[in-house]
């Protein structure tokens, strides 16, 4: 069975690299976009199974992306985890209402993130494969 595909919408290059290393080590394929405009096309092109979404993005904030995904039948089924540096207060509630499945605040706990991904994709896989 091929690896599940995770689209990460994140404008910080360092954070993107961190995601890449962590998720690859846990046998997920990662694809990236760094703005809200290309999130929809990215999800379609790569046929993402899950999306990790930042809120503060250059071309419109993550809530716009949430709305777009909810409004498109082919995208509405993709589970979205919002991971943001923004204050939990207000944002978490709003994101969950807009269709996000989970909300994590930066900096997050890796174990927690992996557990949520596993749960959403229905295949918990916490084994670590060494890079190389």
């Amino acid at each position, binding site marked *: 069975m091929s690896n599940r595909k995770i689209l990460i919408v994140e404008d*910080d290059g*360092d*954070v993107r690299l*961190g*995601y890449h*290393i*962590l998720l690859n*080590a846990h046998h997920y394929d990662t694809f990236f976009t760094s703005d809200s405009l290309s999130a929809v096309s990215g999800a379609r092109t790569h046929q993402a199974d899950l999306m990790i979404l930042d809120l*503060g993005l250059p071309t419109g904030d993550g809530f716009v992306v949430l709305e777009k995904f909810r409004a498109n039948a082919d995208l509405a089924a993709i589970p979205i985890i919002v991971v943001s*540096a*923004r*204050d939990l*207060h207000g944002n978490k509630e709003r994101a969950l209402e807009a269709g996000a499945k989970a909300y994590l*605040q*930066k*900096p*997050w706990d*890796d174990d927690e993130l992996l557990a949520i991904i596993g749960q959403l994709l229905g295949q918990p896989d916490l084994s*670590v494969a*060494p*890079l190389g």
Partner: protein
Amino acid sequence: MSPRPDVADHPPRILIVDDERPNRELLKVMLTPEGFLPLTAASGEDALAMVAQQPPDLILLDIMMPGMDGYQVAAKLKGDLSTRNIPVIMVTALDDRNARMLGLSAGAEDFLTKPVDRAELCVRVRNLLRLKAFGDYHDKYSQMLEGEVVSRTAVLAERTKQAAVLTEQAALLDLAQDAIVVRDMDDRILFWSRGAEVLYGWLSREAIGRRTGELLRTEFSESAEKIEATLLRQGQWEGEAIHHKRDDTRVIVASRWALQRDAADAPRRVLTINNDITDRKRGDAERRLLTERLSLATAVAKIGVWEWDLASNTLTWDATMFDIYGLPPMVPMPFARWSAAIHPDDLPAVEATLQRAIHEKGQAAADFRVVLADGSFRRVSAVERVILDERGNVSRVIGVDMDVTERKEAAEALEQSRQAQIQFKDAFLSHVSHELRSPLTAIKQFSSILLSGVAGELNKEQHEYQQIVQRNIGQLQAMIDDLLEVTRLETGKLTVEPDRVSISDAVTDALDTLRGTARGKGITLSGDVPADLPLAYADQTRLRQILIILLDNAIKFTPDGGSVAIRARLLQQERSCLLLEVSDTGDGISPEVGERIFERLYQVSEPGTASRKGLGLGLYICKELVTRQGGRIWVESQPEKGSIFSFTLPVYSPKEPVRS
């Protein structure tokens, strides 16, 4: 020849000279019932014609008349020997010194100010008629005497006779309450009325023959020479003087003097009427002081004073009122002119307030906006009180309007800047914390990656160092959270939503959260919650937050191998509450520190303790959260033995609202 003036032979004929018929009628109506015979003339010319035909006993003379005015008429009468002894009372609306002086120069004996008071009119008329009668008689008598007596003792004889005559007239002049004194040109008293006896305490027989200046120790406001000159020049003097009574007390009198001349036009006597005005002067002075004080106070404080007469529906305003409303002075002012100046949104409420004050016969207050001519507003704060007439009906409303524009604007500006500051602080801290979290995210990510061994296995030392990095990331994260929490507390964004809460669950949860941290220091964590403890009425998230802050602090300040415990109990007091205690076996804190430990930014920084413990916001947040849930928090501690942080929460009762 009978030695008494004939005053009762015929009803005194009073000539009323006024160009306005209603004025003539009014005086006529006042005089007729008193036994006078009023005659009327509608102009100065008519009056002179009537006087020439048959001289009246007294003339009431209006000043302002078309054609010949009152001054000219008086001058004409006084310039003619045949009419100069007819007393003239000028009736005038001009109540000023100038008008009086002009009248006196023209020869008027007395003044009455419009509107004329009936009692005053009659007393003045009567007094002057008496003096005239005396004068008429005396002139005739003197002429006769002068013809008969030519001896060198003529003056003395005359004085004696005068005295005799005057004594006989006493009965008449004594009717007046005023002090009437007649003296000769040597200031010797010839006549001393009953009124003078009462006023000064000297009997007539004691006073006669003495000099008035010595007897009464008279003090004038102007020099005696000047008065004398005025008297000789104008035949009259009127002014105020201070006299001393027999018992040495001072009286202030309004004094009117009239000079009488003999047939050869030589000054003979001075007739004086003195009126005690001491009380009135004192009252005047007090009133003036009061009025001045009040007007100073109202002007400085920008307080306008007004009066609303209900019958005429007009307003009387002081100068400050016109200033506040930016209107030109107008007396009296129609009520509608005021209501037109009130902001239309405020008018109904203000009028309702006025009506309520009238209805309740009481006092009311209102705040409203006044619209100025340029469309700008003034803020006015008004207080009004109704005035009742003698039957207890509301006749007038008096009030003050205060210009509070500056005060209100300053308060609003202050509030606006306060709000702006809060908003800025809020936005600033949200921004800062967001920006701090971003790099912290990458740091944590890569430190975690290193620790996980994904990038190659770490040796024992490297692993340990990365754990130190992780611990410090955790501290930074907690500080950012605290910072935001305090901002929320201070901007009112933090809300506490109380509900039914199980203390047991909250304690278990908090202990689970910090078990790892405690284990790292070899600290024993324990909880003691009775199974039958009632539910609390609290915000579950906030309760967890409080417990975690207290436990975390306790672990932080307890040396390795110590113990930290949570204990919960029901406190049976007047109003039952739940008591939660977090105790540790740390170093304890001094009482001074205990008092300040819940203050914002307070940090325990005693030598030997770990240096970086956070921002000093944790216990402040705890205190705020406990207080907002209706509880209280305190600390008890014994140095070397540890501390107990305690707080209370309300017990849930079925009456409390429950969120679904």
